[in-house]
């Protein structure tokens, strides 16, 4: 059996389970931790001074496969690393020889191991060339500084994509913020299950859970859309994301996902609350209210609508629209796992194309019984004012007709060329998303 170099250095993490030989009488200091089995261990390294790589999955049992052809100079015994399966970097925190490996995310094949050196005479030579660590250490978490080139960005984006994939598939709670590479990625709302539950309990006595369900569906689809976006990573998303990661403030306006124009959103939520909970000014049970202190106050966001950093751009409530216009206001499955989507269901072209309806017709999305209410632009302009005003809106709005009314859809004549072309395109381009609802004839269900 080949001799285990880490054991010789006194830091073998597999202990008795190690596949290599541990010569008795060799050094035994340090190390440990490997013996427990099944205990996946990620060293979350925040000390960026040390270039500590972290494998993407942090799987404890996998070994690095060092491609001997990529190694420079004075290494010895490449055979000690052969045939140990996948490339994840399992020997994390060791500093020294740890650098350069496990390039995180999807970079499985290209293990930049040029700095590996396992000869016992020179085991720390890898440390002499810190500049070459950047590549490898850029794994799933804390970049250690170094060059910020395109490759790094690519890796970051890959990591984010993978995270999104896992998030979607795993069925974990979706209303959570997501943080990567020292930035909070925008577009996610941070809500706890208790908050939602409280909402539900508060609306239950009134018997009308429709509003609650619509709200939930809306949040759900926002989340799904955002996750999809980040997974697919079209150029526009990519640019916006990179800007965020590199420290720029998220762009506002129809850039869509970054903005924090809270007022629009906050008041839109409050109008939502008011209609459904029948207590417009109080919204006592309704923790989604704009006043909000107990709720979102911990979220130290300037927007502070209790939704924290959400999709606050006025171009939003996407599929809220879709669900309202459907005839089946059902709260179809709430699961966060990626089932084939049912949600932005009915006007599928609608919802998924991020039905950016707007101030003219949008309040219909908020679970208002009547499909369309007019004058809702006021909702989006005010904060708490929108609250009281909204209470009166729904009733007054019922005058407008259902179905293909003006307020839900815009006739083609009213749209500019650009807007028309956006609607006709397969996807919206960030920055050119129309603010008016699409014409009904363009909707393909």
């Amino acid at each position, binding site marked *: 059996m080949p001799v285990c170099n880490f054991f010789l250095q006194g830091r073998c993490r597999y202990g008795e389970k190690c596949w290599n030989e541990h010569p008795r009488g060799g050094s035994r200091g340090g190390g440990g931790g490997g013996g427990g089995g099944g205990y996946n261990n990620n060293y979350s390294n925040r000390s960026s001074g040390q270039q500590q790589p972290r494998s993407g*999955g942090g799987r404890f049992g996998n070994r690095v496969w060092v491609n001997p052809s990529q190694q420079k100079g004075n290494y010895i015994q490449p055979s000690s690393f052969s045939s140990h399966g996948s490339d994840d970097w399992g020997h994390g925190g060791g500093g020294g020889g740890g650098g350069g490996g496990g390039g995180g995310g999807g970079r499985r094949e290209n293990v930049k191991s040029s700095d590996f050196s396992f000869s016992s005479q020179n085991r720390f030579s890898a440390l002499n060339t810190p500049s070459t660590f950047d590549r490898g250490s850029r794994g799933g978490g804390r970049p250690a500084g170094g060059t910020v080139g395109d490759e790094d960005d690519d890796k970051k984006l890959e990591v984010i994509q993978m995270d999104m994939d896992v998030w979607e598939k795993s069925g974990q709670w979706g209303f959570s913020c997501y943080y990567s590479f020292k930035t909070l990625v925008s577009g996610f709302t941070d809500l706890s299950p208790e908050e939602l539950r409280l909402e539900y309990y508060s609306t239950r006595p009134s018997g009308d859970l429709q509003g609650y369900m619509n709200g939930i569906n809306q949040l759900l689809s926002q989340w799904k859309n955002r996750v999809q976006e980040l997974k697919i990573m079209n150029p526009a998303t990519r640019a916006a994301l990179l800007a965020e990661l590199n420290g720029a403030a998220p762009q506002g306006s129809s850039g869509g996902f970054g903005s924090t124009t809270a007022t629009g959103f906050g008041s839109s939520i409050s109008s939502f609350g008011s209609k459904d909970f029948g207590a417009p000014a109080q919204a006592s049970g309704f923790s989604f209210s704009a006043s909000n202190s107990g709720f979102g106050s911990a979220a130290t966001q300037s927007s502070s609508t209790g939704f924290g950093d959400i999709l606050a751009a006025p171009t939003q409530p996407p599929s809220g629209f879709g669900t309202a216009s459907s005839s089946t206001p059902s709260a179809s499955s709430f699961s966060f796992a990626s089932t084939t989507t049912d949600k932005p269901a009915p006007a599928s072209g609608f919802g998924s194309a991020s039905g950016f309806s707007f101030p003219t017709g949008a309040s219909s999305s908020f679970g208002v019984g009547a499909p369309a209410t007019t004058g809702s632009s006021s909702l989006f302009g005010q904060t708490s004012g929108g609250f009281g005003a909204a209470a009166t809106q729904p009733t007054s709005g019922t005058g407008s007709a259902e179905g293909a009314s003006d307020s839900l859809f815009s006739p083609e004549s009213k749209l500019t060329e650009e807007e028309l072309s956006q609607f006709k395109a397969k996807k919206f381009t960030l920055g050119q998303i129309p603010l008016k609802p699409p014409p009904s004839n363009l909707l393909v269900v």
Partner: protein
Amino acid sequence: MSLFGTSSGFGTGGTGVFGSTTTDSHNPMKDVEVTSPPDDSISCLAFSPPTMPGNFLIGGSWANDVRCWEVQDNGQTVPKAQQMHTGPVLDACWSDDGSKVFTASCDKTAKMWDLNSNQAIQIAQHDGPIKAIHWIKAPNYSCIMTVVATAERGLIVYQLENQPSEFRRIESPLKHQHRCVAIFKDKQNKPTGFALGSIEGRVAIHYINPPNPAKDNFTFKCHRSNGTNTTTPQDIYAVNAIAFHPVHGTLATVGSDGRFSFWDKDARTKLKTSEQLDQPITACCFNHNGNIFAYASSYDWSKGHEYYNPQKKNYIFLRNAAEELKPRNKKW
């Protein structure tokens, strides 16, 4: 209302089904079931402090009540008393002399419940639902602290020496929303760090003043469906609560997957994982000497309202924790 409305106090029907049903998985670990559990999800559990003889367990629930049981040495539980709030009770804790219980609720109030007189008076009024409440009294702590985990992944450590003041804000080691936090102490019984659980099946162990942050702080994955099989996507569950064993310093985590696990954070190993219960486990705690581990099986809303079944019974189980939580000896 001192008893639960029935003559014997043993609850309505279904009393102490100590492992009666063989096929359903509500108690796969065959643990002792507490009689008269609350009618809705249990949000918190707390055992009485050592200053009081005997073991008393309080549990708060979404049915707006908080109940107290006496846990006898033979494992029998006797419901003792109950108090109501006007909203779901989210947290409860004991005073250090064991005579009073503090409860915090979504009705924005906190109450102090005197167990001897069975009276509860309101002690606090907030603007929003109160999520957590703790009793701290410590003239002789040199570094007493409390850790608050906030939305948007905030983490604030407060120092409670004279005036509670913010001691430090910590950058969260986790990528997703926090769910629970628990403080652990060092050998001298001083709080040195905390464990933070997230919705993403991960727990971070974080020391406040570690000698070597990179090596001492770490995270580990837990409450996921496939162990090391990486090809199929895992199901990831939230960690609902964390509790530290008062004597051994090992910790227990409970999650939405309906399992509980015991871990040794110093040896960085897992000690045990339970079988899967049919409902998520929402709360857990140890009694003061670490012999009893209590955990509550009820729905935690992790899958939204559709999976909420008001008819489903909620349980609290008690397990003997003296043996299973002994720390592993380190290899070297």
